């Protein structure tokens, strides 16, 4: 439980003692544009690389002191002491991160939140839309190491299929579709028979735009499949202290950052 990165002085001792590292600076190893406005950012952080579980996220902080709020991104892949994210430029923070180059530094905190449950042997069906892809690539990477489990990626894109290559490194099967052909439900319907015949219980893990996730939950409910959903919400802190990131569940208004981001369809009451 040591880390290769430098932390703000006050947490140095805590980190040495094995406690959770607060916001700290890391080095950018690589940043590449995968397709128009979508980037894959890699930084060095042994702690996050060795602890992150699928659907856990990292808060990334702007280097501009007038933009204080954390920007959360799902961990996409880890490799030794390196952590990769994938993000789309949608505002000021992501526009800044798009300009990061190898050797630059950026402040991060993580891994944060709960994770997809992937301990049991199953056929994990990784259903993602757009920038929901990164946590499901990480799920594929993780599941590749789970005894008796396989994974089937089902990705929907606007147009360019920027995530298939990465999922393909780990998933047993990768299906994808773009808007001109349909959406993830089109794909799920197409491969339903195959999923049922695989001999392993299918468990859906999903992340993407809200309407897509609601449709996926409904699809799962109809087939009585397990379904874990990774949600998004605007955050204040990312670590559970401010109650700014809530989502309505059957258990009340819960925090996406620490009660989530993963919730079961039952807990959300979706698709019934």
């Amino acid at each position: 439980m040591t880390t290769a990165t430098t932390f703000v002085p006050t947490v140095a001792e805590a980190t040495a003692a094995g406690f959770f590292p607060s916001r700290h600076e890391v080095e950018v190893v690589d940043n590449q544009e995968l397709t128009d406005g979508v980037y894959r950012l890699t930084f060095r952080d042994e702690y996050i690389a060795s602890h992150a579980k699928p659907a856990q996220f990292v808060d990334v902080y702007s280097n501009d002191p007038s933009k204080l709020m954390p920007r959360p991104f799902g961990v996409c892949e880890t490799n030794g002491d390196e952590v990769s994210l994938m993000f789309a430029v949608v505002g000021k923070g992501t526009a800044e991160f798009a300009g990061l180059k190898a050797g630059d530094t950026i402040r991060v905190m993580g891994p944060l939140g709960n994770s997809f449950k992937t301990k049991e042997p199953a056929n994990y069906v990784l259903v993602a839309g757009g920038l929901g892809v990164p946590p499901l690539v990480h799920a594929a990477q993780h599941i590749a190491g789970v005894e008796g489990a396989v994974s089937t990626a089902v990705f929907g894109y606007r147009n360019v299929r920027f995530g298939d290559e990465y999922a393909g490194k780990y998933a047993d099967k990768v299906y994808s579709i773009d808007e001109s052909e349909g959406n993830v439900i089109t794909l799920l319907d197409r491969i339903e028979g195959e999923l049922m015949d695989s001999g392993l219980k299918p468990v859906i893990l999903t992340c993407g735009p809200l309407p897509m996730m609601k449709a996926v939950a409904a699809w799962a409910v109809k087939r009585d499949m397990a379904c874990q959903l990774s949600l998004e919400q605007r955050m204040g802190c990312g670590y559970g202290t401010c109650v700014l990131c809530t989502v309505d569940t059957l258990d009340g208004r819960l925090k996406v950052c620490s009660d989530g981001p993963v919730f079961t369809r039952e807990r959300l009451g979706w698709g019934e």
Partner: protein
Amino acid sequence: MVRSLLANVWDGVNEMIDDTQHENLYGSYEWKHPTQVAGVPWKNPVATASGTFQYAAVRWFYDVSQLGAVTTKGVSPVPWEGNPGIRTAEGPSSNINAVGLQNPGVDHYLEDDLPKLKAINATVIANVAGHCDDDYVEVVSKLNDSPADMLEINVSCPNVSAGGMSVGTDPVALSRLITRLRKLTDKKMIVKLTPNVTDITVPARAAVESGADALSMINTLLGMRINIRTGEPIIDHVTGGVSGPAVLPMGLVAVWKTRSALPNTPIIGIGGIDSGEKALEYLYAGANAVEVGAAALFEPTAPLRVARELDELLDARPELADKLAKGETWR
């Protein structure tokens, strides 16, 4: 319904970290410059600000008992669900929040948060919320028998007893409320004022004359942002409270003016503090102590860092440090 608010903070983390190591966090630190607020001793002049500190979330980062004090999230008589939808937006050097005072209620607080904080020897300020005078009465009565060290009455919530405005904007309603609460408790009672008034010294005086032992200021400033893609407010509640570095000049002026109007009232300065230097500005403006709010959202360890920085800065300012230790202030 809101039970799990404090449970399961990072179930992932729980697996990773051995809780028994907690007491090692930062080892021990000898604070050189304590303060007093209304006679209550603080290890140092830096506390957390209400709503930006939850023990279950913060304990992974540092030993919270080392803070001057810990102010907990506002509690109401029963659990409150807060506002639905998007609750936050960003401003230049600021955060805007519209939590709507979601909290699991005073009973949960008395059973869970408070005993845990007292078990580690934290100095605890219990922040009290209410939508009508009776809400405050119920919470204060219950807290009076608790081990909380001080009470902080947040009079900035929209309040039916003040016609839907916050009690903090109406000195008559405020006097009535504080007079009533004063009879219910011997604990030192801090009244937390809103800056959204024409002249903060008016409610300040009303609170003190009705029995407040101390004042804290400022709560958040009213603000909003609009999403230029949709033309609609980002926050579902439309407006929220602005906090963070941007509000520093407004917080300082509130303390300065109140210190001038009420030379002997203990004051806790709040608003935009993210460094020992900014905390020091509040002490020079006449505060006895400070609270750190939004900074902890962006950097979990900010309150303890600010306290350590301030401790160093006070080394070179023995006259100020002396006054604080005696419960006096610079002005």
